[in-house]
């Protein structure tokens, strides 16, 4: 494109109609998107209909991957568990995220302190993922701090084993990881609410509960939606945390795809990926109805 422009004499530039100009402007992104996203997706789609064995995919039509995906108990189990994780993590991070963001935005008066507290939320992320996962063992493990405390207080005689390598442990790690984006998204939306509006409500005699329900909630909907998108996509796409925290004993949709990829069985993994993608995109589309991202970015 730059070459075409420099080749054209200056007075001819106006010849380019606005429509052509916009097409040219989107062209680079369109090319990248087509090459790096659409074509690979199309290939994945095609592969999901092929026969396979021992790291080979044969160019023969085989519907087994899709039949299994749509008729097996396994699929139901995988999605039931994945959605259970999404639901629990979303509710907990929403409640935690809202309380923390509300406190930071409306109860911490000093701007510097607010910034400091925001930064403090990020402290767990100063270290790498694998280290963070291993660090749960000294806390939640059989001989971990919590079990030592429980036994020290004579609340239990045997170590509590469901704290680690369990669904509970997976949830703890998710919530630990995903509360921060929820806080950040909501605090960002709250920061845009003029204090004068809150003040006016207070002057008119509104209680704190009324202010939250009638003013803050409606105004931070975009923040809630963005935070939720973050949480939902992170949980649905995760394979690392669930593997580490459950000791590979919990099978989610993502884990199932990884198991098949590790066994070089591409067609069933491709079929599962496509269904997962469709589901995640639908959820994101639904959530975006609550948030106009373009409007958010313009503010």
């Amino acid at each position: 494109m730059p070459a075409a422009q420099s080749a054209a004499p200056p007075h001819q530039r106006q010849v380019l109609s606005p429509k052509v100009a916009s097409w040219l402007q989107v062209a680079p992104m369109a090319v990248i998107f087509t090459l790096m996203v659409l074509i690979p997706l199309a290939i994945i789609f095609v592969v999901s209909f092929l026969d396979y064995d021992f790291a080979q995919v044969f160019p023969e039509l085989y519907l087994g991957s899709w039949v299994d995906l749509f008729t097996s108990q396994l699929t139901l189990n995988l999605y039931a568990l994945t959605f259970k994780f999404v639901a629990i993590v979303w509710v907990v991070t929403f409640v935690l995220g809202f309380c923390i963001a509300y406190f930071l935005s409306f109860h911490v008066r000093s701007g510097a302190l607010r910034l400091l507290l925001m930064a403090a939320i990020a402290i767990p992320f100063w270290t790498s993922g694998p280290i963070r996962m291993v660090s749960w063992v000294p806390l939640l493990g059989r001989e971990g701090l919590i079990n030592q405390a429980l036994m020290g207080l004579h609340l239990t005689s045997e170590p509590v084993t469901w704290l680690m390598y369990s669904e509970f442990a997976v949830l703890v790690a998710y919530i630990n990881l995903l509360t921060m984006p929820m806080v950040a998204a909501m605090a960002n939306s709250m920061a845009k609410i003029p204090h004068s509006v809150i003040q006016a409500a207070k002057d008119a005699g509104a209680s704190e509960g009324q202010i939250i329900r009638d003013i803050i909630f409606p105004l931070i909907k975009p923040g809630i939606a963005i935070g939720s998108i973050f949480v939902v996509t992170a949980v649905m796409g995760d394979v690392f945390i669930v593997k580490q925290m459950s000791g590979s004993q919990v099978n989610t949709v993502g884990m199932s795809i990884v198991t098949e990829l590790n066994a070089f069985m591409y067609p069933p993994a491709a079929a599962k990926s496509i269904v997962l993608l469709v589901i995640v995109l639908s959820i994101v589309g639904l959530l975006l109805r609550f948030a106009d991202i373009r409007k958010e970015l313009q503010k």
Partner: protein
Amino acid sequence: MTDATTTPSYKYKSASAKTGLSRRALLKTGAAAAAASALPAPMLWAQNIKDITITHIGQSYSTIPQIAEKANEDLDFEVVMQTAPDTTTHVNRLLTQPDTVDVTDMPNTNMKYFLGRGVLMPVPVSAYKYWDQTLSLFVDGTYPDGTAASLEGYAPIKSQYWKDESAQEFSLTPTDYLVGVPMYYNADTLGIRPDLIGRPIDSWGELLNPEFAGKVALQDGVSTGIADAAMALEALGEVTYVDKGNMTKAEIDATIEKLIEYKKAGQFRSFWSNFDQSVQLMASGEVELQSMWSPAVTEVRTRGIECTYQGMKEGYRGWYIMMSAMNHLEGLKRDCAIEYMNWVNAGWAGAFISRQGFYNSVPDNAKEFMTADEYGYWYEGKAAQGDILNPFGKVMEKAGATRDGGALWDRMGNIGIWNTLMDEDRYLVRQWQDFLSA
């Protein structure tokens, strides 16, 4: 390398030292061609060998920096090691970008993925110097006393030879073409925390004993996890197999059904998928009993925690790693790749890896680079006279200790199952997910 002083220098070095010239120096003087005829193996270094780079791709257990350093010291071409993070990445790289690799080492269970692909080079038996010193277990699938080794699972002999030079099919009987050069192997068994268990453990069946509910781990990954589980289920008589290393669909169903019962009853604490995890599970006391690799047991012990690794009455689970070269190699580079494969089994690297608890396929060569005490401890089941050091110079056993399970053939001679990749892999992977989901 604390052991370097106790081991003789590499053969090739001493050979060229006799002439008073290093090979590199010869090349520099440009007198290579003239001198070549006066020295053994002139073919390889008569030309621009120093410009050749051999890329060796392996995993953390084989691409060890100290070995690369020594290889570059001994050989006149450059050896570059790259470490694949996991088997999937490793195999994918070999299958999809074979031209970026020259030499690789892989568990033999992967070999099925390479059938009919034309990616691996048939290694002529005549090009490999140590075939006549290689253990018969790999040469023809027999033990030293002539009896046939177990064929349950993916026994080494199942993918040791190509049928012919076209390298399309394996042969169960010796031919002139090797799929790869035998490298390391071992007999794995259960790692045990005797301080926590307090009674002898002598059967794989104990993995499923309710006494240890919530205190055992399986290896993650379908093919290893199922092999461990099959050893246990067969020991308990809960499932009977024709070949537990290559199950029928009905046997897979029966196995998965039993495993789901055990999982629901809370038998398994965790599954481990790498070395560090297995060490961490054992060292932290999360798990008291699990199938382990020898160096992981060593690591637990180096931390001062008791961990035993003796054989079970049903035998060990054997595994085997071989080194293959890629089919795109030709000319001088091909010669260098073969030279490197020869070097790997010439002793130094074999001794290094032996100190980690693995065995080398040419023990005679490794022996030359180990002290008598080391060789006695690692290979002959003798009590250590002095401290036994790991390859990195850390004391791992005090004088008087003997290796769990005894001598090489006490361990390798008693294989109950080999690591496996079953014919019904596709069905197994599918059913295994039901187990994980349960």
